[in-house]
């Protein structure tokens, strides 16, 4: 039980009772080299026997998985960003509400920014200077990103799990023990990234285990091994953070920024962090996730006050007028 046990920078495995734990392992997903091939989704399912997620065309560009779930522990996001983006970020849905013809509004603009009528002649839009995030872009961009459980330093799911099914492994990763989970479902609203989910016919909660069985034998997780362009990199978290810091510098002009790398963020930094090319919410990620456990002491205090108020109320009720 260290100082930052509930919140703040921490090496989670020793804090969770592992004496001379191995170095903390994690993922660095560099989305600038992701080609959206979904090998990670398939390799993960083949290794872990994850059931398929149904055959539904979602119309979210090439994403027919629709985000992480109990049956998709890796999920590749696709965002088609038209060449011309008006100054402020506007939601495609809002654009739809503004009554533009349906076909155009829903033109697979990937929810992130939308077009005013692209001027015809192949290269729409004027040639605007520079390409910083949210600044107008002169060419079409297709963002891809393999989303995964963040294996947070302070994991909301793990903290709230009442059966100890979710636990911190010696590698600092967060794993659901399928022989313990009774499907209480509490981890599901507790995850600030909306990762973990209950599998309908099975009842239990499922998510990425960072291939706990493989890394236990010194192997590489299935998705990291399969990833053709090494967008998914597995390794010691400190090494990955150093590598990512170098990488983000090189790609500054493309709007590159790291996400989940900072031990001082709202979850104490992620065990699986990312290099993104646009705002997190464009990929369906929360811009400023904070683990609820941070406010737990304050919450219990409030509950205590309310409890005292109750007791007082009852006392007053009975001891009040003798009648």
């Amino acid at each position, binding site marked *: 039980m260290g100082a930052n046990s509930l919140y703040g920078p921490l090496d989670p495995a020793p804090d969770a009772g592992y004496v001379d734990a191995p170095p903390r392992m994690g993922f660095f997903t560099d989305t600038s080299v992701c080609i959206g091939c979904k090998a990670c989704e398939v390799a993960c399912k083949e290794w872990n026997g994850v059931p398929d997620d149904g055959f539904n065309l979602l119309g979210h560009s090439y994403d027919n998985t629709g985000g992480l779930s109990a049956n998709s522990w890796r999920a590749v996001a696709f965002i088609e960003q038209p060449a011309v983006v008006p100054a402020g970020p506007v939601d495609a849905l809002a654009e739809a509400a503004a009554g533009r013809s349906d076909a155009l509004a829903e033109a697979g603009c990937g929810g992130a920014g939308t077009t005013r009528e692209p001027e015809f002649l192949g290269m729409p839009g004027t040639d605007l200077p520079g390409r910083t995030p949210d600044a107008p872009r002169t060419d079409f961009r297709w963002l891809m990103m393999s989303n995964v459980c963040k294996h947070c330093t302070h994991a909301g799911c793990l903290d*709230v799990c009442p059966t100890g099914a979710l636990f911190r492994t010696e590698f600092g990763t967060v794993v659901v023990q399928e022989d313990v989970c009774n499907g209480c479902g509490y981890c599901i609203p507790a995850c600030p990234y909306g990762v973990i989910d209950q599998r309908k016919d099975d*009842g239990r909660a499922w998510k990425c285990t960072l291939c706990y069985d493989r890394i236990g034998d010194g192997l590489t997780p299935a998705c990291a091994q399969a990833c053709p362009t090494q967008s998914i990199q597995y390794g010691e978290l400190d090494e990955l953070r150093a590598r990512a810091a170098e990488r983000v510098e090189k790609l500054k002009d493309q709007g590159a920024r790291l996400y989940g790398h900072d031990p001082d963020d709202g979850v104490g930094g992620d065990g699986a962090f990312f290099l993104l090319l646009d705002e997190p919410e464009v990929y369906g990620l929360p811009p400023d996730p904070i683990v609820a456990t941070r406010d737990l002491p304050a919450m219990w205090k409030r509950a205590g006050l309310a409890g005292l108020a109750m007791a007082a109320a009852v006392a007053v009720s009975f001891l009040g007028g003798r009648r």
Partner: protein
Amino acid sequence: MKDRPMVPRADFRSYYGRPIVRPAVWHHDIAAYLFTGGLAAGSAMLAAGGDATGRPALRRAGRVTALGALVASTYFLVNDLGRPERFHHMLRVAKPTSPMSMGTWILSGFGAFAGAAAVAEAAPLLPRPLGRLLGPVGTAGQYAAAVTAPALATYTAVLLADTATPSWHAAYPELPFVFAGSALASGAGVGLIAAPPRESAPARRMAVLGAAMELYGAHRVETSKGILSEPYTQGRPGKLLRAGRTLTALGTAGALLGRRSRVVSALSGAALLAASLATRFGIFEGGIASAEDPKYTVVPQRERLAQRQQQHKQG
């Protein structure tokens, strides 16, 4: 895809409008448990108060209702589990970081105490030696239950608040008061229904105090959370919470004015119970609605980031 809700122009971006955090998967069993948990707590306190101030009707009604509500609670909790046959796994650990883990132990303790108290009610029917022994055990159980009741009533507020569901988490300062007030009102309701007018004064006062606490809490939750109050005021959650408010008002008025009439008291008791149920369902569904729309995750977080960057610049 055609009938996607036309979201009013909001200044945020999202991934095809899909949720960012995941709505809780609990069925309405859990909302029902919020009510029955509160009822059990309220009843137990009523029973203790009644016993302590010589009001046997309140005691008896309190004890029996507490046990009944407890059994109902246990059913709702186990039935909602993905794997009901593994309900005992709840006692595998005692985790301070998990309100549900703490709640399980609270509920177990309370269950034992309230159980003993309720059983003791049946002491007269049992053969003498056993009956005599039960009396004091029942009383001890009763008071122990009363002591744990506030924890039972308010831990569920911490449980909901300790999630990433935007409107639940934002309401953490007030939610315990809503649930505490609601539990008191429920208990009072039981008293108003079960006890003759002469014994029901404390129940009346309890109803008023409970209602006040619940209304204050609910009002704060529905108005002071900015965009995160929206889910509690719109759609079904809004209707439920408004119904809760009116029923509380009616119940309280009935409790105060209907001092003489057993029927009016019972009716106001029932209103208070109904109010508590409606409030619980309203809070439950309001939170879930806030998780289903990415707006409630992105906009507040963007504002928080902006403020922090602001402070950073000034600091």
